[in-house]
C-alpha cells in the first residue's frame, strides 16, 4: 500500500516523498514506542538487558566470571555492532580457558522479535521446557532476554 501511496502523493504535487518500506511491523520489531490505547504485552516490553555478553575474540576464561555473576547460565556472543553471533552455554564455558568465544560458541541461537505477544511466547517456553528467549531487532542486534517465571 505505501509504495502506491507514495506515488499518489508525488502525482498530487508533493515534492519530497518517502516510503518507509519495512513498515509498521519493522517499527514494532525494534521494540519502539507506539500510540496504542490498548494492546497486549509483548516480548520487548519485558526484555531484560542483564545477560552477560562478550565479543568473538574474548577468552572463555575471561567470560566465565561474567556469567557466574549474571542471572543466566550462559553468555551471548556479539559483534562490535551488537549483532548476535552465538551463545556460550555452561559446557562451553567449562572448557579450555584460552579458547575464544567464537571457537566455543553455538552459532545462530534462536531468537524472537520484540513485537511477539508475550503470553504466547511464555506458553511456548513452558511447552518446550525452556527458561528464556533471546530478543533481537530486524538487524539481529540484541535487545534483551525474556525470562519465564517459575
Amino acid at each position, binding site marked *: 500500500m505505501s509504495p502506491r501511496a507514495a506515488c499518489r502523493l508525488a502525482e498530487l504535487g508533493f515534492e519530497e516523498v518517502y516510503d*518507509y518500506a519495512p513498515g*509498521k511491523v519493522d517499527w514494532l520489531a525494534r521494540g519502539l514506542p507506539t500510540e496504542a490505547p490498548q494492546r497486549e504485552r509483548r516480548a520487548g516490553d519485558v526484555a531484560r538487558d542483564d545477560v552477560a555478553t562478550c565479543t568473538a575474540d574474548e577468552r572463555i576464561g575471561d567470560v566465565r566470571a561474567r556469567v557466574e555473576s549474571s542471572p543466566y547460565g550462559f553468555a551471548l556472543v556479539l559483534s562490535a555492532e551488537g549483532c548476535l553471533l552465538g551463545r556460550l552455554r555452561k559446557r562451553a564455558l567449562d572448557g579450555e580457558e584460552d579458547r575464544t568465544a567464537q571457537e566455543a560458541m553455538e552459532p545462530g541461537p534462536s531468537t524472537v522479535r520484540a513485537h511477539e505477544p508475550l503470553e504466547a511466547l511464555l506458553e511456548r517456553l513452558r511447552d518446550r521446557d525452556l527458561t528464556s528467549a533471546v530478543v533481537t531487532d530486524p538487524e539481529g542486534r540484541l535487545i534483551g532476554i525474556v525470562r519465564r517465571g517459575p
Partner: protein
Amino acid sequence: MPHAVDYPRLRELLDSGAQLVEVLPEQEYEEEHLPGAINIPLKTLDAASTAQLDKRRAVVVYCWDGL
C-alpha cells in the same frame, strides 16, 4: 520520484520534522500507530484528504510492511 527508506533514514527524516502518514485503514491506525503519525487511508488519499499536509515539507508514508 518517491524514495524507499529504512529505519535509520526514517529516524533522520522524523528528527528533521518530516510529516508521517499511515495509509492503512482507520481501524488499524486506531489500534496502534507510530508516534505522531496521522491517518490517511490509501483508499481515501486524494487532494482533499492531503490538504492538511504541507507540500513543501518531506512526507513519509508507511503501511504494515510495504506490500
